[in-house]
């Protein structure tokens, strides 16, 4: 019985996204076959370009360079966002003080941060880290602040009455209560980080997926542009399904248990 349920759950989890990917691939191939244009290469050409970068040994180091920069920038963004979001959520005065800066940060396009950081930091590692942090931190901070405001005051009162220590409050009350907001902030922040890192690498770095995209663009090699984009997409899918959704499942297992 359990095996039947597991197989069914697996099918319902895997089949829809696979179907979507297959549908997009078929639509793309149909379009490429109908247009016969070098600007719209078919799946075989894109696959060939992908195999070429994989065989050349560039794929892993270039993606690793980009991932490393995103990870460092995102870690800084997250730390800043927690430091800003917690007081914003707890104190109306802090919120009124910090909100304009966060709103301005949200409205500045990633391209502007990328350009500014290239000017400020040149080709150093600080360039992508600061650009990613500045782009992602405001969105994450606002999400965290909203989460803090939504923490049930009745639970805080209960923790006060029962004299919960700072560790128990943080580990057993604040962190689980904020988990959905931290995760959704992280997800949104990561999506912004990906966009800005490509720009930074296009304008101011000599490695990474953005740099390779720019090189492929300069040689008007659309198949190569798409192959790098595809590689990037695969990494993001692994992060989303392998890391973010696993974290989400872990953080909300208590909610699912109620439906069993």
């Amino acid at each position, binding site marked *: 019985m359990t095996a039947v349920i597991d197989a069914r759950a697996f099918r319902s989890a895997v089949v829809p996204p696979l179907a979507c990917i297959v549908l997009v691939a078929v639509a793309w191939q149909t379009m490429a076959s109908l247009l016969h244009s070098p600007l719209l290469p078919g799946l075989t050409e894109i696959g060939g370009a992908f195999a070429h970068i994989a065989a050349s040994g560039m794929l892993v180091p270039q993606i690793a360079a980009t991932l490393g920069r995103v990870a460092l920038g995102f870690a800084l963004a997250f730390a800043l966002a927690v430091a800003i979001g917690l007081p914003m959520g707890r104190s109306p005065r802090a919120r009124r003080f910090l909100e304009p800066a966060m709103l301005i940060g949200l409205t500045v396009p990633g391209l502007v941060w990328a350009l500014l950081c290239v000017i400020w930091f040149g080709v150093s590692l600080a360039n992508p880290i600061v650009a990613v942090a500045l782009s992602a931190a405001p969105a994450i901070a606002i999400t965290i602040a909203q989460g803090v405001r939504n923490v049930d005051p009745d639970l805080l009162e209960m923790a006060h009455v*029962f004299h919960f220590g700072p560790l128990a409050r943080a580990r057993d009350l604040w962190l689980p209560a904020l988990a959905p907001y931290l995760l959704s902030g992280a997800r949104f922040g990561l999506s912004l980080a990906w966009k800005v890192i490509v720009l930074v690498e296009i304008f101011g770095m000599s490695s990474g997926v953005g740099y390779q995209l720019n090189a492929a663009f300069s040689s008007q090699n659309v198949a190569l542009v798409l192959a790098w984009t595809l590689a990037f997409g695969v990494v993001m899918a692994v992060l989303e399904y392998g890391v973010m959704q696993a974290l989400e499942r872990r953080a909300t297992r208590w909610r699912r248990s109620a439906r069993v």
Partner: protein
Amino acid sequence: MSVAVRLTGVGKTFTRPETGVSEIALRDISLSIEPGELVAFVGPSGSGKTTLLNLIARLQLPDTGAVELTRADGAVPRLAMVFQQPRLLEWRTVAENVRLAADAAGIPRERVAPALEAVGLAAYGGAFPLMLSGGQRQRVALARAFVVEPDIILFDEPFSALDELTARTLRSAMQTVRAIRPHTGILVTHNTLEAAFLADRILSFGAHPGRIVGEERVAIPRPRDPDDERLFRIHQRVLRELGV
């Protein structure tokens, strides 16, 4: 005579921030509660019962007067509270919810299982609160209060959100646990029959401003039967005190 809770001339005024209008929630409340005694506060909405409970729990501070909680050995008395809603951490299991309170009070974790057993939840330690019924969730809240071995337990309408059948079972469970481990208790309730069943003394509160308008002793030995005729007579006297 020793005293567990002493209130002297306690007053509390709230100001509505939107209008700036002040309202006296409590005026000049003085009362003493003996160790082991269970006193019920009954009265209409707005009579300041819950405010008074919050002052005793130190969730708020009085504007005038003093709230003293004492223990015979001079130590600081340990306080627990059962709220109208269970206020459980839904992401922690039943046992973890109780254990967290025990940890905070320095009570050994071995006491968690007996506390759950005392409220009839021995088999539910590993369950998450969302898997439980409303009555079971409130039982967890009772276990959390009992496990810290409190000197004083404050009950803020603990059964008012439950159906009468469940509430009746829980009142009996509370009576049983109190018999095993006596403690001073303060019960805020709208239900005068509930007050008569559980309390040693019933204080009736009037509204605007909140003040004590009557006192009734319940000299019926325990264990009490919820259908005892004498409880109904006390209930009627309390209603008269409240002007109903």
